Structures are given as structure tokens and as C-alpha cells.
């Protein structure tokens, strides 16, 4: 009795194994040929396609793009690729994720990297390059970047002297959102200097509302809007040189100049007279979601909200965002305009196109994304700006992005990239964020800057 039983037992195990294999096989054989786009050669004879000759012709090839850009901006991205897809025959598969950073790291580590990723932090790019998964940018891309971007921008896509990632979009952070209609009704004017801005704040405060509003709450990233405040002010008080040294940790995080910048920010954000318009006292900054930070402006409960150009997406769709509309932004003025180096500092951020594959169709698309033709076509669709010098301001669809592009292209402006995105992750997306939350909660400048300095990774 025992023997046959055992044999059948083995048979059952073999059967289970067989099922596993069948499962794998049915996965492999599932569906095929769904990716062929079949544009073929005939499309290339289309006169509209003449401009795409240089990218070549590929039939039935697909490029996977992984990004953190989601609805509604993703629709414009996809739309801007359509002509390229039609003319070259390359199909672009666009995938966005709200957990972009974490998902990208796991996927690259697992050997399942996308062809391209739009990376918003140079710091993350550096990490991935060190993993050895990022492919260096091809010559065609590097040439275009040399021609269309400033050396500063190229530097952000460069790791250890090797150029990897071309810049894509850009956003300007040195902006203060306000309501032109409210300003007009109360005969207020847009300030030209920092001192004017503080005077304006006093004037508004005298009218019985708190002039500034802010929101630092952003889930696990709570505190990040505060880091932009510090960076913007340090760029104004210390100048670009000090800023660069601070970011690369040549001067300590609690250097007296940085401490001074924190205090300067505290003059506004820690003043019960100035904040938090429409929400309550200073500490509410930490509990207001960053998305809602400025939403009290249209209700005339707050007048000023320092936030990047991408905040445009947060306003109620019925509001007109324009110089003479309901909502607009002005350039956060310089603190020390007499010094040439500090005359017009602009803080910004952007994405970079990193490639995990060097297939020709991937490189063709990379090259297209670095071209002024794409930048102009993309900007026409709205809600987007780039530091591409070939981007013509008249092609930028909305007023706020026009303002951004003007600032990005202003020859007098000194542009610097968001410093927290370039610091080591432990600081830039860790202790610096918590420091801002603690700063608002009442800790002293010495305490918070000292804590960040202590957390800076040694090596």
C-alpha cells in the first residue's frame, strides 16, 4: 500500500510543478503584437514630418517613459509627443506614479527599469548613476544641451564629470502669489524691494488681515515648502557663491550666514502679525496642507503666498490667473539689489531625462526632448515652462508660465537649482524638512540648523 501511495505523492508534486510552468507559459503566450504602431515609411513623406528626419524612422518600436508627472499635466505631455510618434513610428508609453522616487529605485534595482525617467532631483540622479544603471547621454543630446541650456543647467544633469541627463521642464520658485484685483481695490502696489515688501505687509496687516499665508504639511515630505523659503532668502542675503558652498557642504549648515537667512525668514513666517492669513497663528503653518496654503487669498483673508510657479494648478478653475486678473504672482524681490551678484537671484527646479537604455529609438526620443522644437510645441499646450533658450516667450500659453520663462531667460538673473534636491537625501529630503517643521513650532534657529548639521552624512 505504501509504495504506490508514495509514487502518487510524487506525481502530485510533479503535477503542481507542471501547473506553475503552465502558468508561466500562459503568461508568456498571453497576447502579442499589441505594441506595434506601424507608422512605417509612408508617414515620413508627410511634409509636416520633414523636421523629424534627423531622428530617423523606426517601425514598431516602443519607448517606456516613467515620470512623476500625473494628471492633468500628463495629457499635455502625451499630446506633445504625438507628431514625433507619427513621423518616426516610435510609440511612447507614458507612465506616471505618485510614488515615483521609491518605485523607480526598486524597479532599477530589480532590473526592470523603464527606458527613460524624468527625474526631478539631481540628487536622485546621482544615486542612480552610482548604482550603474543610468546610460550616459548620447552625443546628439549633449550637443543640443550645450546649445540650448546654460552651463548651470547642464551641470545639474552631470555626475562626476560625465553628462547623463538633459533638462526637461522648469519651474520658478522665487514667486509670491497675490491677488491683483485685491491689490487694485486697496490701492496697493507690487513691491520692488524686500523692504517695500515688508512695508506692504505692514500696510495690509493694518487693514486687519494677516498678510502672509503658508502651508508646510505634505505628508511624509512635510516641511519642504519651508526649505524653499530658506534657499530663496540665502540666495538673496549670501549670494550664489555662499549658496553653492552651503549646498555642497563646504560651509556647515549652521554657518552664521545660513543662520542669518533662517532669522530673515523667521521675521516673516514666525511673526504673529504676519501669519497665517485665514488659518490662524504661526503654528498652523505646519497643519495646513501645502496645496491649500494660498487658497485663502481669493477670500481676501490673506494677501501674499510665496510658492513656486507650479502652484498655478491649485487655484480654483474659475479664477483668472493674469496680471490684471484674480490671481497672479510677482518676483520675490532682492534683499540687497545694490550688489551685482545679488541683484536678481532666481530659485527654481526642474526635471531631467535619464536613460536606462541606449537603444537607438530611446536616444532619438531623448534627442527630440532636448530640442527647442519640442519645447515650443509643449509650451503652446500650456501649464509648462522650460529653461531651454530656444523657447520663445510668445509661444508660452499662460501668463504665469510666461513670467517664469522670462525669469529663467533673464540675462541679469542668477539662477540656482533647489538646494534641498541636491543635498544628500538624508538631509535634503529628511532632516532639512523636519528642521523647518521644528522651526515653525518654535525651536530656535541655532537648534534647528545645528540638528541638520549633525545629521549631515559623514564621508
Amino acid at each position, binding site marked *: 500500500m505504501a509504495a504506490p501511495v508514495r509514487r502518487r*505523492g510524487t506525481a*502530485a508534486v510533479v503535477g503542481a510543478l507542471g501547473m*506553475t510552468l503552465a502558468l508561466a507559459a*500562459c503568461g*508568456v503566450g498571453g497576447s502579442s503584437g499589441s*505594441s506595434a504602431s506601424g507608422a512605417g515609411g509612408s508617414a515620413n513623406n508627410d511634409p509636416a514630418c520633414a523636421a523629424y528626419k534627423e531622428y530617423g524612422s523606426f517601425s514598431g518600436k516602443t519607448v517606456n517613459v516613467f515620470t512623476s508627472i500625473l*494628471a492633468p499635466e500628463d495629457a499635455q505631455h502625451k499630446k506633445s509627443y504625438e507628431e514625433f510618434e507619427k513621423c518616426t513610428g516610435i510609440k511612447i508609453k507614458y507612465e506616471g506614479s505618485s*510614488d515615483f522616487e521609491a518605485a523607480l529605485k526598486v524597479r532599477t534595482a530589480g*532590473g526592470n527599469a523603464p527606458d527613460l525617467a524624468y527625474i526631478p532631483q539631481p540628487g536622485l540622479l546621482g544615486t542612480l548613476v552610482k548604482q550603474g544603471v543610468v546610460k550616459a547621454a548620447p552625443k546628439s543630446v549633449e550637443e543640443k544641451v550645450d546649445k540650448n541650456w546654460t552651463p548651470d543647467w547642464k551641470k545639474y544633469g552631470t555626475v562626476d564629470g560625465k553628462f547623463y541627463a538633459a533638462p526637461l521642464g522648469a519651474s520658478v520658485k522665487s514667486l509670491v502669489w497675490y491677488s491683483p484685483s485685491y491689490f487694485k481695490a486697496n490701492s496697493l502696489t507690487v513691491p520692488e524691494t524686500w523692504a517695500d515688501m515688508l512695508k506692504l505687509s505692514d500696510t495690509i496687516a493694518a487693514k486687519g488681515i494677516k498678510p502672509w499665508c503658508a502651508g508646510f504639511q505634505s505628508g511624509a515630505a512635510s516641511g519642504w515648502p519651508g526649505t524653499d523659503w530658506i534657499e530663496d532668502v540665502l540666495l538673496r542675503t549670501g549670494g550664489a557663491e555662499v549658496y553653492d558652498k552651503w549646498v555642497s557642504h563646504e560651509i556647515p549648515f549652521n554657518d552664521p550666514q545660513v543662520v542669518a537667512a533662517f532669522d530673515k525668514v523667521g521675521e516673516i513666517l514666525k511673526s504673529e502679525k504676519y501669519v497665517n492669513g485665514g488659518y490662524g497663528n504661526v503654528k498652523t503653518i505646519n497643519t495646513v496642507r501645502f496645496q491649500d496654503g494660498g487658497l485663502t487669498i481669493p477670500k481676501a483673508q490673506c494677501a501674499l503666498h510665496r510658492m513656486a510657479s507650479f502652484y498655478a*494648478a491649485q487655484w480654483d478653475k474659475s479664477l483668472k490667473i493674469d496680471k490684471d486678473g484674480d490671481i497672479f504672482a510677482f518676483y520675490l524681490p532682492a534683499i540687497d539689489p545694490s550688489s551685482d551678484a545679488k541683484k536678481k537671484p532666481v530659485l527654481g527646479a526642474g526635471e531631467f531625462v535619464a536613460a536606462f537604455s541606449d537603444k537607438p529609438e530611446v536616444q532619438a526620443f531623448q534627442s527630440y526632448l532636448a530640442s527647442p522644437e519640442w519645447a515650443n510645441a509643449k509650451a503652446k499646450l500650456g501649464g509648462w515652462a522650460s529653461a531651454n533658450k530656444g523657447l520663445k516667450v510668445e509661444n508660452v500659453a499662460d501668463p504665469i508660465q510666461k513670467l517664469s520663462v522670462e525669469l529663467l531667460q533673464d540675462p541679469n538673473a542668477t539662477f540656482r537649482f533647489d538646494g534641498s534636491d541636491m543635498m544628500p537625501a538624508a538631509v535634503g529630503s529628511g532632516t532639512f524638512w523636519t528642521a523647518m517643521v521644528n522651526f515653525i513650532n518654535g525651536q530656535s534657529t541655532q537648534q534647528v540648523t545645528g540638528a541638520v548639521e549633525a545629521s549631515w552624512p559623514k564621508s
Partner: protein
Amino acid sequence: MSPVAPPATRKEVRAAMESGPQLTLAGRVRRNLASSTASFFAMLTAIVWTIPTFGLLVSSIRSENNIKTTGWWNWFGSPEFTLENYREVLTGGDVSLGTYFINSIVITIPAVLFPLAFGAMAAYALSWMEWKGRDWTFILIFALQIVPLQMALVPLLRLFSRGLEIGTTVVIPALELEGAQKFATVWIAHTCFALPLCVFLLHNFMSQLPRELIEAARVDGADHSRIFRSIVLPLVAPALASFGIFQFLWVWNDLLVGLIFVGSVPEVGPITVKLSEMVGTRGQDWQLLTAGAFVGMAVPLGVFLSLQRYFVRGLLAGGLKG
């Protein structure tokens, strides 16, 4: 080794509980817990636990501007009703949510059936077949439960994308999966992650079946596969159903595995991954999550309500005695 007791009716249970002095400690605790004070506290807990979900439901029928600027309780002061959030969730994107709904179903059903099939066979082999190292194998499988899923993500991804080679021998070839074929990766992943618990649960249930039953079948000439199909499977049906529901809810609600293995591409992305993206690049559309949550909840809620009988019975039967 006791024979399977017929399910007691409520009256019998009550009579047994009220029959007085010979109650054990556990019995007394049970009786006290069934008192009206306990019921009251249970109700209270249930209500407190449901309030956030209720708030979500109320929020989902408010307008975007109100959701963002005032708390949901303000709805009672100024009631309003709009299906705008639901409309936006269901039809707002360039690919309709229905596509992702179907993807989720395609992911979930095999991811429930595979572990059930393998788990039942393994549990049978571990409880009713005599072979060397059986107990150690069971302990090993049991121990596997403590391996967190997150630790296995990267190795499993590597296995799929690069295969497995020992020296120069290809043990498992790299799977070159495109488009809809990627469903296989989530099925395999969910099956792997579910098996330890599944085997453990079903083993405990199966090993309690009366030995006489199995022996009688064997005397009548039934082989293992016959015993498994005709005797064991029907008897463990409640456990199968309970684990099935459990696994169904887990897979349907899963975000992590879906996000890592397939992402949100329309061919294979599950509804959870899609919903998590609806908030927009900088979370500006978070009001959509209210409606999205209820859309995503509809299916598991239906499954749970229609099968909860098995859920409770199976869990009690399978989990208590080792």
C-alpha cells in the same frame, strides 16, 4: 480527533451557556462578553470606527471647493449633493476607469485561485501523506510567513527580468514580458506571498479531519488524489472560502505589488494604482480620492458581505488549534 460537530443553532448555544455551574472559565468569559453592556461597547466601537469612512462618503458628494476649505461635518449645516467627483473619477482620465477595473479583476481572480489550488494540495500532502521531513517542511513553510513581502520585491523583480543562472546553467530563463503578459508577474508575486499563510491555514483545518474518514476511504480503495478530491476538498470548503475572501480582499486592495510589478499602464495596471495617481502631480486633485475610494471599495464590499458567513466560520475553525 473529535468528529465534526454539526453547526449549533443560536438557541442551542444560548441554552448551553445558560445551563449554569459547570461552565468553564472560557465559557463564563464568553457569557459575560455577550451581555448587553458588552454589546453596547461593541456597538460604540463599531460606530467610532465607521465615522472616518462615513466622513469620506459625505465628502465624496460635496463640491471640490467645499471639500478643500471646510471639514466634512459642515455638510450637516449646509447639505449639498453633487456627483461631480464620481463623474471625474469614472470618466475624467484619457483611459476610462473601467479598463483598470477589469485589470483588477483579471489580476485578482487568478491570484486567489492559484494559492488556493497549490495551498490545498500542499496542505493535504503535509497533513495526510507520510513522508520523510514532512514536519520540517511544514515548519519551514510556517516560518516563511515572517519574511516581509517588501524584502522579496527586488529579488523577485530580478528573477523576472534576468532569470536565474547558477554558473552558466540557466535554471530559469528571463521572462521577456510585454503588455498584457505582465499580468503573469503579479499573479506569481501574489501567489508566492500568499502561499505560506494559505498552507498553514488549510493544513490546520485539514489535519483536524477525523482519521477514520480518511482510513475508511483508503480501505475502500481510494488513492490520494481521490481522497483529496472527493473527501477532503468538500470538507474544507469553508476554510477554502474563508481564505479565498481573505486573499481576494488583500489582492484587490493591494497597491505595493501592483505598483512595483506592473505600474499604471492601461494594459495591466490595477485600479488601486490608478486611484493613487488621481491626486495629480502635486496632490491638487485630492478631492477625487473620496469618490475613488468608494468606487474601489464597491467590489470587495460586495464580496465580503455576500460571503462573510464563511469568513468568520473558516477563520475560527482553521486558526485556533495547531
